[in-house]
């Protein structure tokens, strides 16, 4: 499965016998023991291993939860609480699974930002990157399906919103929506198919993960310098170390530190990442005041809500859906949008500033997704009171006031005269969350569609080191040309 020559030598009679029939031990040896790995990988590169642990944790805890869960609208909520109360250590298994989803996304976002920063999507790793995007997409689907299963208020109304989004797509949307819901509305049949699909998708993720690792092992790891490890035996020996024990121990350490953070959530704030409304059993007749997705989907939710205007024949709702799906779809073509030959942003000082801007934009989009779009961030002026009444000629008239007392006495005076009068608030102009979301959405797309394509053609990158070995020795710059 890897692109380097195998150094495995079977030692015992049995392994020799097996190696000629099914070289599975050789495969494992070449992939996770002897695999040459650049020796300069930093901690940002440990998230691959962390993600493998997350996936295994979710699948294992999920299998146990499925043994106790009841996928019916009458039984789902109570069965989840029964797991918490009566299943031995059920509370632990469920809290690991629920918080595990958040940890999985935390790790995957760091993993993705790392790939963006060090240019890990560039040739020859395009397929590796695209497979990663497929995993991300499957993860989002799985997380959404899983969030519906406890059948709380956010489960139900969140499912309504998301299936509604798919229904907004032209031509195929409604068909897919009713196929997903299993009928005209969300009900028992929806819950049952969501449970089935939620069980299926993680195994599809696991399958794509195998392809992802395969695609990683053909070109080998990228590294913080973005310079390929040399292929000749001597260079390879200087630039790389065997995966085991060097990276098993480094990844192991990082995984345990990650588990410490994970455990802090599971044991000391198990519900902080969820929404309180999801502990209220789903009621189709009562809509929560604010429907918000889980934190890891907030940036995409903000993009969806940022589009409040029509463009030509496309209305705002459909445009929002297109923008939201587009923000993920654009990742798939990223390898061909970035025109720079230099991988690592270490040597692209200008691009690096734009990258940090992109990280900030993503976080701000998350903040916008969590907030009410109409809330002001920076108020400009103060709200005024407007009294509307009918004047002597029977026409509509208004009077604006700063002070409540004056406005109220004017209204009361008009009412005493027997004239219709009412008071309303005239909101002062403000920079609101929707405006911030629009700006950040613009930056999000501009980063991929304008900045990366143009910057690669125009910027002057710094000199890359000639090899990984030189880079770690501190000879970060290419040696000056020898004097004649």
């Amino acid at each position: 499965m890897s692109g380097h020559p195998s150094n495995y030598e079977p030692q015992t009679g049995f392994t020799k016998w097996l190696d000629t029939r099914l070289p599975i031990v050789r495969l494992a040896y070449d992939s996770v023991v002897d695999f040459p790995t650049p020796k300069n990988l930093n901690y940002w590169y440990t998230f691959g291993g962390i993600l493998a642990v997350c996936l295994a944790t979710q699948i294992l805890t999920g299998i146990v939860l499925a043994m106790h869960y009841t996928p019916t609208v009458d039984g789902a909520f109570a069965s989840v609480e029964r797991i918490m109360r009566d299943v031995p250590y059920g509370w632990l298994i469920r809290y690991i699974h629920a918080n595990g989803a958040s940890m999985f996304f935390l790790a995957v976002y760091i993993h993705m930002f790392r790939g963006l920063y060090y240019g890990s999507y560039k040739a020859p790793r395009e397929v590796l990157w695209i497979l990663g995007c497929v995993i991300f997409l499957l993860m989002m689907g799985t997380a959404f399906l899983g969030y519906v299963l406890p059948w709380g208020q956010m489960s139900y109304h969140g499912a309504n919103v998301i299936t509604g989004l798919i229904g907004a797509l032209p031509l195929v949307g409604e068909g897919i929506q009713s196929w997903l819901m299993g009928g005209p509305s969300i009900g028992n049949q929806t819950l049952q198919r969501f449970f089935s699909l939620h069980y299926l998708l993680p195994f599809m993720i696991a399958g794509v993960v195998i392809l992802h690792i395969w695609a990683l092992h053909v070109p080998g790891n990228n590294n913080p310098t973005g310079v390929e490890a040399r292929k000749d035996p001597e260079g390879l020996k200087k630039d790389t170390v065997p995966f085991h024990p060097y990276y098993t121990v480094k990844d192991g350490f990082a995984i345990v530190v990650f588990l410490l953070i994970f455990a802090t959530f599971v044991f000391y704030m198990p519900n902080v990442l969820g929404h309180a409304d999801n502990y209220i059993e789903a009621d189709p007749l009562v809509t929560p005041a604010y429907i918000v997705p889980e934190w890891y989907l907030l940036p995409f939710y903000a993009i969806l809500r940022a589009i409040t205007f029509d463009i030509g024949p496309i209305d705002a709702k459909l445009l929002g859906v297109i923008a939201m799906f587009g923000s993920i779809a654009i990742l798939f073509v990223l390898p061909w949008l970035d025109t720079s030959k230099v991988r690592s942003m270490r040597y692209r000082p200008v691009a690096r500033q734009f990258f940090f801007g992109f990280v900030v934009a993503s976080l701000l989009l998350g903040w916008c997704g969590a907030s009410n779009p109409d809330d002001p961030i920076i108020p400009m002026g103060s709200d005024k009171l407007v009294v509307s009444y009918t004047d002597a000629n029977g026409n509509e008239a208004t009077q604006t006031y700063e002070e409540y007392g004056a406005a109220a006495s004017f209204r009361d005076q008009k009412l005493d005269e027997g004239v219709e009068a009412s008071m309303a608030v005239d909101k002062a102009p403000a920079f609101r969350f929707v405006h911030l979301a629009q700006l950040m959405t613009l930056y999000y797309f501009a980063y991929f569609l304008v900045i990366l394509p143009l910057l690669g053609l125009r910027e002057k990158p710094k000199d890359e080191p000639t090899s990984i070995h030189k880079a770690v020795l501190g000879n970060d710059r290419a040696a000056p040309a020898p004097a004649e």
Partner: protein
Amino acid sequence: MKFLRFISAGLGAAALAASAHAAGGALHAHEPEGGWAFEGPVGELDMESVQRGYQVYREVCASCHSMRLLHYRNLGEPGGPFYDPEYPNANNNPLVKAFAAQDEILSTEPNDVGDYEYRPARTSDPFKSPYPNDAAARAANGGALPPDLSVITKARAGGASYVYSLMTGYPEEEAISTREIEVEAEEPAEGENGDEEADAESEGADGEGSAEVSPRTETQTVIDVAEMEALSHGDSHYEGELVQPVGQYYNPYMAGDASAQWQGDPRHTPPGGFLAMPPQLTDGRVSYLDGTEATVDQMARDVAAFLQWAGEPKQQQRKSTGLATMIYLAILAVLLWFSFHRIWRKVDH
């Protein structure tokens, strides 16, 4: 240190997530003076308070609120308020058996002649619900459904502090007043009586429509929010009055929107909303079996502690398992850190 960067990235994400719960509208719930015993990584529930809280629940809350996810046996299980090490199986605990037997429930199984009869509850039964179903609960409460209290501390932002704040947050006596107002007789609702409506309209045509119908007087309950202790903190100040709808009670901690009932500056509508539950706790409402003085504050504290336990009966086990896990992981991390440095000592990286 490079490592700190990715830990701070994790914390950043957590902060981002926390901002998702900035609930608007209601006043932020606050904990009682002195805080909660169960707070913090090693905090434990004050079991005497939880026991008293069970008494408050039975004598006050249980007449309207169900707790369908709780069983009598839960009271005597490890981590429960009446756990007795002498009876590791809660079903043998005489106190728990006695609690159960105080309630008469309709048997789910028919008897020998096929009738369903009432019998004393057993430890294995769920807590007795006050109403047979939600529709009956609504019918008995003016259309409002008293929420099931099993997981109420998890289902509301603020948890136990929310319960405490809500129970103690109703307007004080001084803030409530009643006044009589004259209301013009409304025209009969459409379709109620066609003839009468036509009559009223023809009278209206004479220009003397309201003269024929005598104005009614109505009693309004008004709350002067400036008098409310809960609203006088911080820099917000509210000048004006809230008119309470009939059968509704104002509470600044209740999620809702009070703007329609607000007579005052619409730019400064007081937080909170109206709920159908009148103030429940008055001094001495229950007589505590352990002799504790039953002040409103004490009862609110106790019932909130009880509901905190009921929302997650395994929370004590969670924290103790957590401590062991954290210690184990911390030691493992230190060992791996040293192994990492030993293995990499000869490699520049």
